[in-house]
């Protein structure tokens, strides 16, 4: 349960600053096209931060909870921003397909992280360093994502 709360808090701390920024833009009575663009930018930043935090948190969570519970926690962290993503779609900032594409990408990244952890745990490779090793590999994925963020963000929001 603590892990679930931690996951929720991570989502909260990612979403809140973005919301405050968007609020500032909305109250300045911007044109509708400008608001659409601002929300689109906020969603793109959210995608990056959320995926990055997932790559870091999954190896840590796996230490404390079971495999199935980690999947459940990941699902919750995907569901928490859903109402806000739907609002972005209603504003015309992102296409509805973007939400589905993001969901699929998130599941793929989480699965890769979990798979790495599973392999490392199964074969007891450097057992005493397993947590650090899996975190290292997951950070590599995050770095790869960060390196190619323009490519996949473009695919997501268009």
């Amino acid at each position: 349960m603590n892990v679930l709360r931690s996951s929720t808090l991570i989502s909260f701390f990612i979403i809140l600053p973005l919301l405050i920024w968007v609020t500032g833009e909305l109250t300045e009575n911007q044109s509708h096209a400008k608001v659409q663009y601002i929300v689109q930018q906020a969603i793109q930043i959210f995608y990056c931060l959320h995926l990055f935090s997932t790559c870091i948190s999954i190896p840590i969570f796996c230490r404390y909870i079971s495999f199935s519970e980690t999947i459940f926690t990941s699902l919750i962290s995907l569901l928490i921003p859903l109402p806000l993503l739907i609002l972005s779609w209603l504003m015309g900032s992102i296409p509805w397909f973007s939400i589905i594409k993001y969901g699929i990408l998130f599941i793929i990244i989480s699965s890769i992280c979990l798979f790495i952890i599973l392999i490392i745990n199964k074969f007891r490779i450097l057992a005493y360093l397993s947590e650090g090793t899996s975190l290292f590999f997951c950070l590599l994925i995050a770095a790869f994502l960060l390196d190619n963020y323009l490519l996949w963000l473009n695919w997501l929001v268009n």
Partner: protein
Amino acid sequence: MKQNTKKLIKILILCFINVSILPAANMANSENNKLLKLNLHPAWNGFYHPGKITEIGIEVFSKHGGMVNIKHHKIKQSFFLPAETPYFTSFPVVLTQDTLASFKLTRQDSKTSISKNIRLKPALKPSMAVIDNNGSVPLKLLDTLNKLNIKLLPSNASSLPRFSKAYQAIDAILISYSSFKRLENVQLNAFSHYIAECGKVIVFNFPDSIRDNLSAIAGCRGAFFLTSNASKLLARESIQYWLKSTSTTLPEATKLNEVSVKNLHTNSTLLFFYFTYIALILCLALFKVKKIVFLITPLLGSIITLSFWHKEPSKNIISWLEMSHLRSSARYTSLVHIDGQGLWNGSIALPTNAYSDVLPTTKFNDNTPALMNIEFSTSLLSTQLWQWQSSQFIQSPLKLEIVNNSPRIINLSNAIIYNSLLSWGEDIYSLPPLSPHKYWSFDASVPAELNTNLMKLFRQQSQKYNVAVLIPYASPLFQHFHTNEGWLLIHNEPTQTDL
């Protein structure tokens, strides 16, 4: 051998079908086509201004009655065609670059069809229609007009359009009384609209009574309504000046916006939802709650988001008419305001009389050419506005008088007038219900203290007049709109500035 014989028989049967049955069917089809006749009569001798509306008269004749469709581009009109009786209808047409207008007539029962094309001519200079069936307009006047840099389009009364907006294709019209008498009711209605909308008209040889009636409905205080007769021919200079002058702009659109804005606080509601949801997530994270709550809350939030914001936007039209009680034409400003409440594509139908310019996103209604569809798409927080300004002929429901330095209002209509406001001096007063054909005299009642947008607008608009009354009034143009909010401002003195 047997197989060869069978093949030979098959070929012979096919040849028989080809030679006898198919030509018979074709003959029947062409026979049907012969029974169906379609004639096209363009208004204004086929001249038009590119991008402006003109009209094509359609004459249909058939030996057999029945339902028929006639189609031009996206416009389709269906009607019942009586047997062996010529049927006449008309189509508003907008041509931009293509000069060819094609029409297709199809019988609904037999699906037989007939097509016809007509080539129109773009007018390269200002054009004036001369409607004179009996040749009563003197040659001297025609000579004067010929010397001006305009194209004269001589025509007869039957070719005058049935849609007032088809007058966009010409710049002015000269009509003799002998031709005016031949106009059908629908043509008279369109002609009245044209005059009310500040159309340039010279009436020739009209009796005083009819001329005065037309002058009373003329928009722009009759500035574009000229009269002439055999003894009083118009001078070249005055016609030249009249042709060059244009109507001044109508009331500012921004003033009417104040009335239309419905403060939905969409922004505030949205932000409240944002932060409440996030606060709830924080509470769930901090307090001991069951796992399933973390699953249900986001799903519930998503359902609320969709149901609260993904609503079809409501469309409301607001019309504001202003008239002097001395005249019979009113200037109107109408607008449609749509607040986006989600991602929606839609269309609204407006009467062709209601808009002044053809918008790129509009098309004529498939079934009713008198209506025009405006396509639109919305998203959350988006707003869309369409506005029309023009003049129209209406019967004033009120008469304003000042008796003993006090206003007196007479209800000329057959209905009780409710919820009206009076502007007198510096104050605005609420009026009691006004019974039909009764008068109401001012009795120093307490001024209305309502502080609505409508009151503000009324105060603003009535400043120029000594006495003014505002009543709820739905323009007949928008009767098909259930959400038409309309007001009529009647004042006792003409505006100081030129209309």
